């Protein structure tokens, strides 16, 4: 120990204050804790707003209900996309970045004043965007494809939000430097932090792509630029739009590892393999902009094939690796915990009553089966023509972003509230139920929208009965059934979402206080939680019969579904 206190170098803010977490023994710095709280609260608020919009959208698309009039439907759909896909997720991701740096590494947060500035900018941007959309002259959908033009405030709001988020990302990088400099950890950073670094690097690329396209579009809306090329816009915009989903993937996979570590004490099977898989994301995921250009004019086939496959599916391989190593780490840990009988005792005796675990595991399964496989199908050059812009596409990304990312983030919140807000979950019985309600609902939304999309139902469409159309076309009766089931699933998911918001708000405001001596958690962590999540090290020995079975089922489903779609394609009219 030297006599120089931590936090004196290059830091002119208020005194750095730490507390020791009674459950993990980790030290947690005050400003990091406050910023995690602020970002998490903002995230939940925008989830509530965006989720409510989502329910209205689903009830309007349920043909028997058709809740909203057309103009309100398109308006609310624009707001739904911005609030959940951008604001809920990115606020939460900033909280995750601060957690994965300052809390897991036991460091202080770098430049908390800049972090607060970033937070304020994000709030200003998000509120401005909602104002602009609700005012009614920015009903351009989340993608805002030109030449359709929104009010200039809409573009400006997204730019302001992105600048705020970028500041947050750089505070994260700064915190890594501080932690290394002040030697708060030893050797390589833990895997969860490594995954968060991946997310942050992709975030810089994403936000840069957003700036490159949104700044000129904003100038265009102000009249300084005469036009925006529609293909160029789509290509660069999706450099933000799709890559931002890769931030989600990197972030929620980090969360899978974090929850597995904290709830069952899981260590990565091998640090090398899991980190290598994260690296593949940095190298290749940003090519996914091409997924949105497969049915466009003007792109050559070789460009499409190279880009859409993430350079020979190396990023898909990375996701498949996590698909083995996450359940594998859980199985290995559970076997260490004594659940060794048969192929699946580790899974059947897993803490299914802990919402952090149940949410995380459902997120893992549904992200793979619903979001992952269908993403590869959609991203296949020729197969894309079968589903491009049908409601299959939202079906796919509700599998990734709702059943995958959102459910994982909700699961993480059940750990963040006790550890960071120091308030326990207020109604544990309801909390146990919540991930199932939301997860089954979200899974249904994804599945039934994809079913309807297979029958040709378009996305972003107020009336599939085509009542007022010049040439009414009758969609198959199955399409109506699917859209109805989608509406019902949305009610289920919205119930789960509302329950989540109420549980979290009530816990934060009135949950049992945990800062006294002898406090106990409603959902206890594993004894080795702190060590598993914050220290480097692989699982030395393991047997994974259950996981091998699970990934075999996954692989079989993947291959089967892949060829089923080629069969569908070969039945189409001929075109080339």
């Amino acid at each position, binding site marked *: 120990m030297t006599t120089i206190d931590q936090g004196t170098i290059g830091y002119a803010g208020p005194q750095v204050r730490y507390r020791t977490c009674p459950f993990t023994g980790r030290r947690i710095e005050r400003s990091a804790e406050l910023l995690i709280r602020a970002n998490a609260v903002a995230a939940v608020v925008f989830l509530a707003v965006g989720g409510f919009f989502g329910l209205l959208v689903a009830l309007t698309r349920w043909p028997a209900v058709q809740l909203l009039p057309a103009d309100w439907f398109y308006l609310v759909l624009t707001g739904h996309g911005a609030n959940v896909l951008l604001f809920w997720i990115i606020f939460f991701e900033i909280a995750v970045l601060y957690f994965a740096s300052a809390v897991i590494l036991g460091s202080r947060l770098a430049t908390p004043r800049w972090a607060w500035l970033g937070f304020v900018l994000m709030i200003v941007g998000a509120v401005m965007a909602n104002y602009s959309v609700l005012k009614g002259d920015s009903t351009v959908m989340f993608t805002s494809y030109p030449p359709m033009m929104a009010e200039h405030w809409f573009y400006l709001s997204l730019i302001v939000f992105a600048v705020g988020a970028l500041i947050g990302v750089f505070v994260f990088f700064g915190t890594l430097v501080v932690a290394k400099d002040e030697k708060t950890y030893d050797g390589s950073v833990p895997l969860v932090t490594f995954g968060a670094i991946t997310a942050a690097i992709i975030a810089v690329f994403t936000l840069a792509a957003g700036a490159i396209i949104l700044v000129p579009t904003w100038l265009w809306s102000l009249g300084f630029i005469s036009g925006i090329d529609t293909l160029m816009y789509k290509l660069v915009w999706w450099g933000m739009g799709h890559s931002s989903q890769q931030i989600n993937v990197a972030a929620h996979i980090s969360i899978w590892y974090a929850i597995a570590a904290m709830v069952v004490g899981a260590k990565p099977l091998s640090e090398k393999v899991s980190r290598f898989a994260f690296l593949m994301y940095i190298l290749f995921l940003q090519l996914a902009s091409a997924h949105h250009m497969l049915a466009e004019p003007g792109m050559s086939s070789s460009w499409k094939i190279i880009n859409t496959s993430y350079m020979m599916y190396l990023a898909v391989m990375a996701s498949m690796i996590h698909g083995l190593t996450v359940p594998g780490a859980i199985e290995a840990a559970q076997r260490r915990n004594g659940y060794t009988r048969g192929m699946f005792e580790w899974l059947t005796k897993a803490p299914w009553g802990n919402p952090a675990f149940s949410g995380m595991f459902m997120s893992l399964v549904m992200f793979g089966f619903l979001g992952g496989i269908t993403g590869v199908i959609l991203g296949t050059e020729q197969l894309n023509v079968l589903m491009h812009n049908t409601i299959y596409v939202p079906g796919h990304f509700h599998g990734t972003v709702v059943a995958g990312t959102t459910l994982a983030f909700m699961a993480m919140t059940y750990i963040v509230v006790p550890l960071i807000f120091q308030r326990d979950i207020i109604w544990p019985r309801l909390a146990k139920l919540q991930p199932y309600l939301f997860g089954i609902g979200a899974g249904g939304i994804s599945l039934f929208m994809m079913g309807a999309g297979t029958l040709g139902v*378009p996305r972003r469409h107020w009336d599939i009965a085509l009542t007022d159309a010049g040439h009414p076309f009758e969609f198959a009766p199955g399409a109506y059934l699917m859209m109805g089931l989608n509406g019902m699933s949305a009610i289920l998911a919205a119930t789960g979402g509302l329950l989540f918001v109420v549980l979290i708000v009530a816990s934060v405001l009135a949950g049992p206080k945990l800062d006294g001596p002898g406090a106990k958690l409603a959902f206890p962590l594993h004894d080795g939680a702190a060590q598993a999540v914050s220290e480097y090290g692989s699982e030395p020995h393991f047997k994974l019969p259950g996981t091998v079975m699970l990934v075999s089922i996954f692989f079989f489903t993947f291959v089967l579904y892949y060829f089923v779609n080629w069969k569908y394609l070969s039945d189409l009219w001929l075109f080339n």
Partner: protein
Amino acid sequence: MAINPPSNRLWWKEPIHGIELAWIIIAFLWGVFMFFFMIAWHFIGNQNLSSETYRVNPDKFVERVEEFATEYQVLDETGAPVDIAGTPLVRPPAGGDVYMLGRLWEWWPALELKKGQSYRFHLSSADWQHGFSLQPVNINISVHPGYEHILTLTPTQTGDFGVVCNEFCGIGHHTMTGIIRVVE
């Protein structure tokens, strides 16, 4: 923490377990297969979206579509132009050029094609982006103003097929449809 042995703390120097290695190889080979299957379909398959594209002035494109519609307008026995619900019905010669225009809020004109014949199909938009969605066949192609996309299309079924717009194009988006009739 300091009690831990400092051995082997570089992650890229760790050993790989057999199960993980096997799965990586399977995933890699499957990726390689899927990659080459897209290329292979250009040779063995009949459904590959053309990349033949030209920049075009939207007004000029509208003029060409109108000329095309006038030239091949279907006439009834009295010599009067035939329409389907107000949209002129156009019967282009087999193997020839066919135009379809997306605009707020219709696909124009109505086409009558022959089954098994190939057509050079010109797609573009007069105003905003639209989505050409042929139903119930389920062929979905994006249509941009200023870009003329040309594909060779061969219908393999007969009947009346709907063209729905599946790219959001404003408040009338859900009323935007068109029709392609395929006859023997």
